[in-house]
């Protein structure tokens, strides 16, 4: 009993002090410093041209237009979030499917067929794995250079561009590994499409 009597008030007091230190002061200090030094990054990396917003650089979108570069398979979610007028907003979720299941094999076969149809000239080329798999967040904004290259002929045909012109745009939106070693080479799909559409230079 004596131990509890001594311990209880101390634990409440120290809990409140830590709530102030770690919850309020720490979070506040990081917010202020981040807003002062890294305002663009800390606010969601939204692409703005002449005051108009064109999507978030870090969130994937779904593309089905043959003249656009396509990203990872998206498992769209239109029920989780709505704007203030009640209109549904786009979000996405991972599939959480086992890559060793029967159901999964059928799903991938379907995607392969759909990509073959979209791009009849590429029958001989194996499809890069990024184009038939759903990402970890469901919102992956990138694809691999191989997955981008696979789509070059289709985009060039749809836009009356040469394949090299499309490749130039892709190269401009390709980022190498961090310090040349860490992570993977990535192509930002939204940036490529905004450049193809003439919105980004």
């Amino acid at each position: 009993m004596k131990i509890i009597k001594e311990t209880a008030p101390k634990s409440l007091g120290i809990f409140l002090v830590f709530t102030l230190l770690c919850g309020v002061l720490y979070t506040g200090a990081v917010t202020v410093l981040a807003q002062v030094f890294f305002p663009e990054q800390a606010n969601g990396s939204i692409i703005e041209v002449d005051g108009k917003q064109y999507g978030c650089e870090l969130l994937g979108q779904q593309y089905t237009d043959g003249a656009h570069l396509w990203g990872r398979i998206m498992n769209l979610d239109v029920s989780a979030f709505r704007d203030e007028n009640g209109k549904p907003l786009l979000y996405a979720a991972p599939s959480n499917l086992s890559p060793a299941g029967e159901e999964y094999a059928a799903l991938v076969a379907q995607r392969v067929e759909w990509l073959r149809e979209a791009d009849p000239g590429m029958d001989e080329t194996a499809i890069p794995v990024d184009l038939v798999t759903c990402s970890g967040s469901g919102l992956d904004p990138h694809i691999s250079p191989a997955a981008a290259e696979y789509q070059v002929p289709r985009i060039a045909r749809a836009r009356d561009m040469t394949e090299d012109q499309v490749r130039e745009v892709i190269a401009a939106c390709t980022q190498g590994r961090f310090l040349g070693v860490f992570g993977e080479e990535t192509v930002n799909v939204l940036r490529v499409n905004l450049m193809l559409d003439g919105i980004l230079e």
Partner: protein
Amino acid sequence: MTAVIQYALYLAILVGLAIPLGAYIKKVMNGEQTVLSRILTPCENAVYKLLRVDREEQMSWKKYAAGVLAFSGTGLAFLFLLQLFQGVLPGNPQGLPGVKWDLAFNTSASFVTNTNWQAYSGESTLSYLTQALGLTVQNFVSAATGIAVLFALIRGFVKVRETGLGSFWVDMTRIVVHILLPLNLVIALLLAAGGVVQNLKPAETVPLLEPVAVSAEGEVLEDAVIDREAGTVTVDGALIPDAEIVTEQFVPMGPAASQVAIKQSGTNGGGFEGVNSAHPLENPSAFTNLIEMISILLIPAALCFTFGSAVKNKKQGIAIFMAMFLCLVVALGCIAVNEQAGTAQLAQDGAVDLSVVNQAGGNMEGKETRFGIAASATWAAFTTAASNGSVNAMHDSLTPIGGMVTMLLMQLGEVVFGGVGCGLYGMLAFAILTVFIAGLMVGRTPEFLGKKIEPYEMKWSVLVCLATPMAILVGSGIAAVVPSVMDSLNNGGPHGFSELLYAYSSCGGNNGSAFAGFNANTVFLNVSLGLVMLFARFLPVIGTLAIAGSLARKKKIAATAGTLSTTNAMFVFLLIVVVLLIGALSFFPALALGPLAEFLGGVA
């Protein structure tokens, strides 16, 4: 080839940073001067003055344990109430309602026990106030509690014929002020610089390049032709009435970077966003990934060196570190090879390219392009070795063997580095078991670091080591016969059983990662998993402190030629064998029904 270099560098950076941090933590534990003392010691003293804490107090093990329990209980109650009433509290720009009682209990238990199991999705369930004042605070203090208990155990080894283990309040204050706050301030700012959001604004919306059509029932219409000006949607020439056209995308905002920093470095793991560090706004690049991933194991690895230095036997610290490190490397290798190989279902007889030419290749289901296989496999090994539980790829979509290794790492009792503090005190309980078994084999009284190991220590060590297997097996056994649990499964067959087993392994190991297709937000699962987490956390805490109290009272015995060495390769080997024996054998039957059955089904 670059993948191999990546794996090697991740491990090298970890060790390179852990050694100096371990030395720093030892100084903090003993109240010695450090480079940051001039700024931080006044803050520390202010806390003591405000709360009238006696910094010289030496608590008995029972009083220390009472402090841990009372403090954790306070946090549990506060977090529970905060969630229930978040709807009427400020700091809620999204206007989210209060959380239901069972989910609120589950989340409170989860964050107080350093588990961070999440049966909810952050961006759609919790207000900024709850995230910052509730979860971020628990991320700090639950981590600090683990380290404090470890400090008490270390003092048990060091002290001779004394009863006190130091003051819980002093340990907590020093750990938070001198270690966790400065470290995380740096990590959080690096993350914000790398693109992790950090603000107090409500969520934003941005326009989509291509609109998406949705039927009145809320189904996405594939192959729809959308006339934006007329606002009509047609599929195969037929007009779809009441179809809605989605033209904007949801962009979550909020104070993420500050919380992500501590959830990584405190082995908490609870994501700000639902998909954790796979989310591009929580982990946008290989740079932020490197920082977040190293943070997972930084403190747990450093504490091995702290331990060695504090017991004045650096070789002992290195021996424990080596046992953990070897297990980690083997596990990482297994995951890496399996994920890079992919599966036959994905390869489609060669129609899908799984090679590494201009892409990461392998099993990319559930993985982000920017991380590929190497950074995802390393993360998966780190997060389940440490009881972190954050993910940058979906573990539900790992290959069968890759998924099994992550599960096994948790089932070993989270002692391959494990949670901050608790991983090491768990491993020390295994070390006590090991010297006891080895002592019996050669017919000598077992001793560890000059202290005799007697039945009292043995009983508590066994409880500490068996708490996790008991919690997991009993919990998942009950859940497997509850009919309603079937509805929570996302995959059928053996993979469905793996989802269930993973959930209880994760909570019983205080890890918190998930096979995320599993819907854990039901009353039965919330309550049972909550209880599993509390049991698996606090039984070992009490056991460890009891051992510490008993060891501190003993006299020191000098090492002789007949003393079993606990610092050589033989001991490291024995320790690993004991850990594997208890962990792996307890779970072999369960694993055979889940991931092994799935793997063999794929081979046959």
